[in-house]
């Protein structure tokens, strides 16, 4: 009821004000993105004279050269592999740990949980040099695992917290019913906790995947063979290589963010909910 009354009472003036303001901000967001995508179709000269408008001649080769080259796909595959492994390990490892915090009473449980929560307090950058030395000493430098393992470790604090809060809110009687039915802790985890935690698995996965997919500093420090680079590193190398040939760089940027944009629009509800809930609940 309240919604309809606000609609009815909204004057034409308010309406204009709303749409003009919102459109202005939307333009500020979209113009850089659209000019980037369009810029990829232009020649360098065209770009110089006319960065805003449509290309005077559509140069598809800027895009097709990248799409038919190996480099773009290799970087995407690298990023995908790193992100999928990070998500998988984060979900498995943190769900198991969170389960013990939520359901198993043991001495020092609270302190141990706080230990993990310390991980929420500071970014990877803080310990990046000792981390580099550790990865080097473990012989993981320039390998995917040198990126994946620290990413998982730094994601544990938040993931464990999210999982633990979710597990804790499962009704206690469910656990007792399962106990009566003959479940031990591990079977309860497998047959009851996990199947019931799809929403939180989704949240943790989305947050972890987006973080990993976009992550730059860890691969920058841990990887030094270009064939292993994920796309954020690759894009910087590409830009370094092609310097001021902006039309190529723009085409490359467009193609690299395209998967993100497509997935975002397809699964916007889940992604927005996941990213904001992930932040708010932790």
């Amino acid at each position, binding site marked *: 009821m309240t919604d309809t009354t606000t609609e009815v009472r909204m004057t034409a003036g308010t309406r204009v004000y709303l749409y003009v303001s919102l459109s202005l901000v939307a333009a500020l967001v979209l113009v850089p993105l659209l000019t980037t995508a369009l810029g990829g179709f232009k020649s360098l000269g065209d770009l110089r004279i006319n960065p805003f408008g449509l290309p005077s001649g559509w140069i598809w080769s800027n895009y097709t050269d990248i799409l038919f080259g190996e480099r773009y796909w290799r970087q995407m595959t690298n990023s995908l592999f790193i992100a999928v492994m990070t998500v998988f390990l984060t979900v498995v490892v943190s769900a198991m740990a969170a389960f013990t915090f939520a359901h198993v009473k043991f001495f020092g449980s609270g302190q141990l949980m706080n230990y993990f929560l310390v991980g929420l307090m500071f970014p990877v950058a803080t310990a990046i040099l000792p981390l580099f030395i550790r990865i080097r000493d473990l012989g993981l430098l320039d390998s995917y695992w040198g990126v994946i393992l620290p990413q998982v470790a730094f994601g544990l604090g938040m993931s464990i917290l999210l999982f633990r809060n979710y597990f804790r809110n499962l*009704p206690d*009687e*469910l656990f*007792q*019913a*399962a*106990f*009566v*039915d*003959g*479940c*031990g802790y591990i*079977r309860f985890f497998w*047959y*009851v906790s996990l*199947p*019931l935690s799809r929403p939180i698995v989704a949240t943790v996965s989305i947050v972890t995947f987006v973080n990993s997919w976009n992550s730059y500093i860890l691969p920058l420090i841990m990887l030094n063979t270009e064939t292993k680079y994920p796309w954020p590193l690759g894009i910087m190398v590409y830009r370094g290589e092609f310097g001021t040939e902006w039309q190529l760089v723009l085409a490359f940027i467009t193609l690299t963010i395209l998967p993100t944009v497509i997935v975002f629009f397809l699964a916007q509800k889940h992604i927005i909910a996941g990213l904001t809930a992930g932040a708010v609940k932790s």
Partner: protein
Amino acid sequence: MASVELNEIRKAYGALEVIHGVSLSVEDGEFIALVGPSGCGKSTLLRMIAGLEEISDGEVLIGGTVVNALTPRERNIAMVFQSYALYPHMTVAQNMGFNLMLSGVAKPEIERRVNEAARMLALGDLLDRKPSQLSGGQRQRVAMGRAIVRDPAVFLFDEPLSNLDAKLRVQMRTEIKTLHQKVGTTSVYVTHDQIEAMTLADRIVVLNGGRIEQVGTPLELYRAPANLFVAGFIGSPAMNFLDAAVDGDEDQPAARLVDGTTIRLGPARKVKRGQEVKLGIRPEHLLAGAPGDTVVNGQTLVVEPTGAQTHVVFSLAGEQVTAIVDGGFPVRHGALFEAAIAAEQVHVFDRRSGLAL
């Protein structure tokens, strides 16, 4: 099926003891109800029998074996929870068969037993539904189905009807009774509702403050409550209590209320002259317009018609006393209400110890 024995069971959380040495013996096939006000320890006691709660001291025996260290599964008990605790992600059939699946029973056998239980509980059409698609009563039946599928030694019920509305509660009560008569499994049933306990149980255990007040059949508890607590707890509306002092002679004992009214007592009551007592009179034993050993009267304060019967609250010796009269009996607010009491129906309790005399 098996008997259940509790032997000096205690439960303490740190220094705080909540169950103070409870002993009880439940026979094979018996239906026992544990009743008491909230916080009396009845649920804790049940959970100790189930193996969900550690036993601080004493022993629990099921079928003659000490089960203190056994898990619920090893005790072979089944439990129906207050919130039903159905697995939300499983269908009705999966919920009921989960236990059998965990014990590695073959699929066709699981199916057979689930179907059999479903038939018994009229759940046949619902087997593929998820709990969220069921009504409260249906969920309740699934919870019971889950318990009977496994053919346990003991059924435990933890206030299973308290989440249902009044009408459904009465219906499910009948179903539980029918079920017990059919399968005959030893059952321990926790409830705070004394009517539920009275209607369902072979014997009732009244608990208060972590101790047993009385154990007996429903009628024993009703007719011969051992103390003030049981007398006040069993029966609805609750028994009226009046302070009095014993008067009269050996073969015709009587008690004098504070306002001087004398009430005749049964000759079997072991009372001494001058003893300070509390009299207990059930509302249904205050008979209006009938002859009796004693006739009392007082001003009518409240008239509550319920249809077949009318509850009348009138004043007697400075107390408010409730009586039940026939729905057609004329009573008027403010008028004088007169009721007769048979001497045999007057319960007498020692005022200090609270014990029945």
